[in-house]
C-alpha cells in the first residue's frame, strides 16, 4: 500500500544528504533474463545522481521498477526513509516522482497542453478544465522556455522541444525527484546545453534528478554522484563524481579499460567515389560535396539542419527536385532505395528500431533482408543454412552479443541492434556508407566497436558519410567535415589540427568560416 508522506512545502537545501529514494536489493527477472540482481540505489535530496552502464545493463528496468511499472521479484523501496510500494504510476506521482522515459512518451496527435496533463487531468466536475490546465501549463512551459507553444499539436514540435515539454510536465507536478532516461540522445548540441542548464536550475531549486546517459562528458558536467550498473548488478559503490575520472567510470561500466575513444586508422585515401552537386529539395538547398575512397566525411549540424533529408535524398527515399549525383565519376540518378543499394550506396537510418530493424524477426532475417537474392541455390530457393552461416560469421566479426542467430532483434541491446543494422549493409557489399547518427543511444564500449567497424570498412576501400550531432565524434572520426545549417551547406573543412570545436559550432549556427 502507498504510504502517505508529509507534504513538505519548503524546498530542501541542496547538499543536505538525507536519502530521498532508496532502492534496496532489487531483483527483476524477465523470461530468460535477469535484468536486475540485488541492485542498490540511493538518491539523496538535492543531488543530481548519475546512473550509468552499458546497453542492457538494466538502467531503464531500474527506472520502471521505481515507477511501479515493473513489479520486482525481490527488494524494497523506501521514500524519505519510509518503505513504500507503488502499484500504479499515479502512486509515484503522488510521492513526487516524475519521469522522462527513454522512449519519448507523448502522443503526437494531441496538443502540448493535453500531453502535459495526460493521465493527470485537471477537472471541473466531470469535465476537463481546459482553462486551468492552460494556465498552469503556461507557467510550467515558461520555466522551460516554451511559453509560446500552448496551442500547438505535439507532432509539430522538434525533438528537443518535445523533451522540454516532458520536463515542464515534471516541473508542473512539483516533483521532488525527476528521473531522466537518456533525454539527450536525440537532441542537438545547443538543445543539450539548454537541457543541462535547466537541470542545474531545477537542482538549485531543490529538485533531485536521476540522470541516465551514455555521454560521459555531459554526465560529468552536471552530476554530483554516480552509480554504475553492469550486467544487472551494482558495479562498485556510489561515488562522488569529483573523485572519479571518465576512464574509471568506463572501467566500471565495461569491466576493462578502453584503449582509445576514437581509434586511429591508417588508410590511404584514394580517388573520388561519390559526388553530388547542387542538391535541392524543400528541406535543403544547394548541397554539394564529395567523398573519396577510404575517406570519412563527417556531416555536422544542429538537429533539424536537414542532414537526414539530404542523406535520404541521396538514398532515393526523399524527393529531390534538382541536383546531380556521380558515382565513381559517372553521373547517375537514384530512383529508390533499391536503386541506391544496387549502385553501392547504403544508408543506416538514425532510427534503428523503427527504420532499421524488423524487431519481431530474428537476426538472420534482419541481417539478410537486403541481400536475400544472394542466397539462392540452384533451384532458385533461398538457402537458409547459408544465410545462417554468413550471419554467424559476420556476427562474429562484429562482435555481436549474444551470437544467437535465432534470437529476435527486439531482444538485443541498443548497441548490438546497431551492429545488426550494420551487418545487413555490410552484406550488400556497398561502396558508399551513409551512417546517420550511428552511435545514438549506444554505450561507450559499443561506440568504440562501431568506430572500429567503420575504420575496417574504410581500410577495405569503402567511403563513409557520417551524420552526427556529437561534435567530439565528428572531430574524432572525420577526415573532412561538412557543416549544415537550416538546409544550407555552411562549409566543408579538413579535419586537421587547425580545426577546433568553436569553428564547427559557428558554422553550424550559420556563421561563416573560410573554406579550404
Amino acid at each position: 500500500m502507498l504510504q502517505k508522506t508529509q507534504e513538505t512545502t519548503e524546498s530542501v537545501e541542496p547538499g543536505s544528504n538525507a536519502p530521498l529514494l532508496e532502492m534496496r536489493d532489487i531483483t527483476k527477472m524477465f523470461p530468460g533474463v535477469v535484468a536486475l540482481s540485488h541492485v542498490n540505489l540511493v538518491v539523496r535530496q538535492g543531488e543530481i545522481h548519475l546512473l550509468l552502464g552499458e546497453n542492457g545493463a538494466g538502467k531503464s528496468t531500474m527506472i520502471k521498477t521505481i515507477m511501479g511499472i515493473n513489479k520486482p521479484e525481490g527488494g524494497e523501496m523506501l521514500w524519505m526513509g519510509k518503505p513504500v510500494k507503488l502499484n500504479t504510476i499515479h502512486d509515484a506521482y503522488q510521492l513526487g516522482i516524475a519521469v522522462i522515459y527513454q522512449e519519448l512518451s507523448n502522443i503526437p496527435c494531441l496538443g502540448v497542453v493535453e500531453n502535459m496533463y495526460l493521465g493527470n487531468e485537471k477537472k471541473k466536475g466531470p469535465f476537463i478544465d481546459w482553462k486551468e490546465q492552460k494556465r498552469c501549463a503556461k507557467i510550467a512551459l515558461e520555466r522551460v522556455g516554451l511559453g509560446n507553444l500552448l496551442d500547438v499539436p505535439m507532432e509539430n514540435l522538434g525533438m528537443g522541444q518535445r523533451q522540454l515539454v516532458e520536463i515542464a510536465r515534471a516541473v508542473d507536478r512539483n516533483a521532488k525527484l525527476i528521473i531522466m532516461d537518456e533525454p539527450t540522445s536525440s537532441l542537438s548540441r545547443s538543445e543539450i546545453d539548454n537541457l543541462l542548464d535547466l537541470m542545474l536550475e531545477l537542482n538549485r531549486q531543490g529538485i533531485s534528478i536521476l540522470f541516465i546517459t551514455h555521454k560521459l562528458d555531459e554526465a560529468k558536467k552536471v552530476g554530483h554522484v554516480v552509480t554504475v550498473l553492469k550486467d544487472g548488478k551494482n558495479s562498485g559503490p556510489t561515488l562522488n563524481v569529483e573523485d572519479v575520472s571518465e576512464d574509471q567510470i568506463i572501467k566500471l561500466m565495461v569491466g576493462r579499460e578502453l584503449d582509445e575513444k576514437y581509434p586511429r586508422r591508417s588508410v590511404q585515401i584514394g580517388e573520388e567515389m561519390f559526388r553530388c552537386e547542387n542538391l535541392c529539395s524543400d528541406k535543403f538547398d544547394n548541397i554539394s560535396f564529395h567523398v573519396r575512397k577510404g575517406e570519412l566525411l563527417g556531416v555536422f549540424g544542429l538537429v533539424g539542419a536537414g542532414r537526414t533529408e539530404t542523406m535520404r535524398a541521396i538514398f532515393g527515399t526523399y524527393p529531390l527536385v534538382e541536383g546531380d549525383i556521380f558515382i565513381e565519376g559517372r553521373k547517375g540518378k537514384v530512383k529508390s532505395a533499391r536503386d541506391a543499394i544496387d549502385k553501392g550506396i547504403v544508408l543506416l537510418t538514425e532510427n534503428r528500431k523503427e527504420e532499421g530493424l524488423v524487431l519481431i524477426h530474428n537476426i538472420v532475417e534482419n541481417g539478410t533482408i537486403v541481400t536475400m537474392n544472394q542466397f539462392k541455390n540452384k533451384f532458385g530457393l533461398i538457402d537458409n543454412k547459408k544465410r545462417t552461416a554468413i550471419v554467424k560469421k559476420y556476427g562474429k566479426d562484429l562482435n555481436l552479443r549474444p551470437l544467437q542467430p535465432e534470437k529476435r532483434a527486439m531482444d538485443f541491446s541498443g548497441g548490438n541492434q546497431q551492429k545488426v543494422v550494420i551487418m545487413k549493409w555490410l552484406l550488400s557489399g556497398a561502396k558508399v556508407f551513409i551512417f546517420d547518427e550511428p552511435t545514438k543511444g549506444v554505450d561507450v564500449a559499443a561506440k568504440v566497436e562501431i568506430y572500429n567497424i567503420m575504420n575496417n570498412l574504410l581500410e577495405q576501400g569503402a567511403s563513409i558519410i557520417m551524420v552526427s550531432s556529437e561534435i567530439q565524434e565528428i572531430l574524432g572520426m572525420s577526415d573532412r567535415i561538412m557543416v549544415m545549417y537550416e538546409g544550407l551547406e555552411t562549409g566543408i573543412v579538413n579535419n586537421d589540427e587547425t580545426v577546433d570545436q568553436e569553428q564547427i559550432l559557428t558554422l553550424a549556427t550559420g556563421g561563416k568560416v573560410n573554406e579550404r
Partner: protein
Amino acid sequence: MKDSMILLKNIKSNFSKGGPILALILLCIFLAFSNENFLTVSNLMNVTRQAAVNGFLSLGMMVCILTAGIDLSIGFTMTLSSVIMAICAVNLGWNPFFSLLIGLLSGSMLGLVNGLLLTKCKLPHPFISTMGTQNIYKGIALVITGATPIAGMPYVVKWAGASFLSSDPTTFFGKIPVSFILMLITYVLFSIFLNYSTLGRHVYAVGGNMTTAGLSGINVDFVRTSAYVISGFMAACGGIILTGRTDSAYPLSGLLLENDAIAAVVIGGTSFFGGKGNVLGTFSGVLLISVLRNGLNLLNVNADMQTIAIGAVIIIAVFIDVIRNGGFAKVKRHIKAVSDKSLA
C-alpha cells in the same frame, strides 16, 4: 479583429475536418437534380429517420476504432439486447421502462464481455474476439427467441423509434422524427464526452499510442474496456430505435449492420489506426450512407447495381479524404518544391 481571425481559422479547420461533408454535399446535389422527390421536407426527414439506427451503432463503433480497435459484434449486441428487452416487456409483461433499462444494461454487459476478452484474456486483436462474440450473441438471440420475432412493443419504445415530435403530420414538428432528435442529442453529448471528459480524451490518447498512454498513468485496460461497454450501450440504444421502428425484436436484425457502421465511421474520417476522428465526421458518414440508400431507392436502381454503387461510394468517399489530407503529400511536396524552385 483578432477574434474574427480565430473564427475564420476555426471555420477553416472545421471545414478541412469535413471531407465526408463534401462527399455528402456532392451526393445530395446529384440526387436533387436526378429526382424531384429527394429535396422535399418529408423525404429529408425520411432519410434522417432511416439514419438513426446506424447513427447509434456508428457512435459506438467510432469509440472502439478511436482506441485502435473494432467491434464486429455490434450488430448482434444490438439484436441480443433488444431481444432481451422485448422478452422482458412483452413475454414477461414487465414495466416498459424497467425492460428498457434491462435492455440497455444487457447491451453494456455484452460490450463488457468484449472488453474483458481483450484486456483480461489478452486476445490479440478485437477483430478476433468480437468476431467470436458476434457468433455467440447471434446464436443466443436465436435460441432465446426460438428464431421468432417478438412483436407488440410498449408505447415508449414505439415512441422512440417510430413517432414524430408532434402527432399532427401537417405541422412542422409533425414531420420531425423523434428518433432523429434522440440521435442528434446523443451526438452532441458524445461530442462533449469525447472532447471534454477525461475518459473521452483518454480514448484518443490510447488510440494514439497505447504504450505511451500507459506510461503516462492512463489505465489503458480501463479505457479500452470502457470503449466496448460504450459500444455495447450504443448498440442497445440503436436496438431500441430499431425495435420501435419495426415494432418487433427479431433475432437476425443485426446481420451485417457492423459493416454499415464501420463504413460510416471510416468515411467520416476516423483513422483506422486509432487516435484520430471526430463526431461530426461520423455524423456525415452516417448521413452519407443513408442518403445513398434512399437515393438508390428513389431512383429505383436495380438491386445488383445498388451493391456496386455502395461499394463504389465507400471507396470514393475515403479516397476524397485521402486526397484532401494530403495522402499524396509526397507528390504534393514534390510539386510544391518544383514550383517554388521555378519561381525563385
